[in-house]
Structures are given as C-alpha cells and as structure tokens.
C-alpha cells in the first residue's frame, strides 16, 4: 500500500454522501439547463451563440454552487475540487436543445 492508499484507508470517504452530492449537482444542472434553453429561445440565439450561452450559463451555475453550496471548499464535498466545475456539464444539453428549439419557435410566431 502506498502513502495515498493508506491515507484513504485511514480516512475513508462516504460513498453515500458522494452519491447524494452527485445527485444534487445533477438535479441543479438539469433544471437550470431547461431554463437556459427557454432564455436562449426568447433571446432568439442561433447556432454557436446558443451553445455558448449554454456553456456560459453552466459555468455561472458552477460558480454559484462553488460559492453557495460548497462554500468555497469543494474538496469537503467532492472527491476532487474540479468535480464541481466539470461534473455533469453535458447532462442537460439535450434538454437545453429541446426548450431552446421550442421557445425559439414559439417566440418567433
């Protein structure tokens, strides 16, 4: 056992809270990406600008989660600090495209 494994064995991680936190992040991502789609549709964004809007919004949500949920200490709640920035970023993309298309069509009546 090397030093890292040993440390992990002495201070184990709780898989249940990891799962719970992953679920929380996933839920926030999917709900917000739906609303991002609505906004992108209302703004009438097209092609690349829409996807840029999605990634910008996702980054904004990551920042909010970093500040409000993890209180600036993501390692307390995730295995690595980058999980809160990159985790599940593509989970809401299909929902985003759906509501984007829907509202793009609705607004441009």
């Amino acid at each position, binding site marked *: 056992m090397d030093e890292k494994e040993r440390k992990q064995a002495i201070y184990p991680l*709780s898989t*249940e809270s990891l799962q719970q936190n992953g679920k929380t992040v996933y839920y926030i991502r999917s709900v917000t990406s739906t609303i*991002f789609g609505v*906004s992108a549709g*209302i703004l009438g964004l097209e092609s690349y600008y829409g996807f840029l809007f999605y990634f910008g919004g996702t980054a904004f949500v990551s920042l*909010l989660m970093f500040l409000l949920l993890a209180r600036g200490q993501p390692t*307390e709640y995730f295995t690595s600090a980058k999980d809160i920035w990159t985790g599940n970023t593509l989970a809401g993309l299909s929902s985003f495209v759906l509501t984007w298309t829907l509202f793009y069509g609705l607004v441009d009546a």
Partner: protein
Amino acid sequence: MSFVSTTVTVLSLLLLFHAGYSAYEFSHYLKHLTVNSDATVPLDIIAETIVATALFAFGQVLGAKQLEPVSFAKWAKGLEREGKSPFAFLERRPGYMNVTKLRDEYASAKK
C-alpha cells in the same frame, strides 16, 4: 426549499414569462410593420431575460439540498447527532443469542 429560494424562483419565472411574452409581441409587431424586419430583440427584453435566468439559477442553487461532507468521519458524526448512526445495528445487538438453536435450524435446512 427555503422561503427565499422559492420566492426568487417564482419571481424569476414571472420575469422570464414576461420577457418571453414581450419578445412574442415584438415579433408580431415587426411582422405587421414590415419596415426593418431584421431588427433583433430590444435591449430591455434581453436584459430582462438574462436577469431572470441568473435569478432562477441563484434560486435553484440556494434551495438545493445541502451537500453532505464526503469524509466518512464527518458524515457519520452528523448522522449520529441526528440519532441515525450508520452503525446503529452494531450498537443494538442482542445480548444473548441461542447459537445452538440456530445451528440446528441451519443443519435441518441443509438436509
């Protein structure tokens, strides 16, 4: 969901609805006017939409379930304080167990 996050979310949805309706009316107006039909959405609608979106994200993150500490020690400590220790089954073991009887049962099941 706390009161603040619910209020913020509802407010943002109202704003978003208003922005969407304005954009809809605007596109109607353009079609009837037929002057410069390639005008984009006016600035106030853009601002309203973006503010509503940001508010919605804020409300959702604020109202999300509290994250749980990933360190097993801290997590178990929190649970134990609520009286839901993950090791409760070890702490409330029966003091006496009739092993002979259980063995007999096992042996008869094996046959």
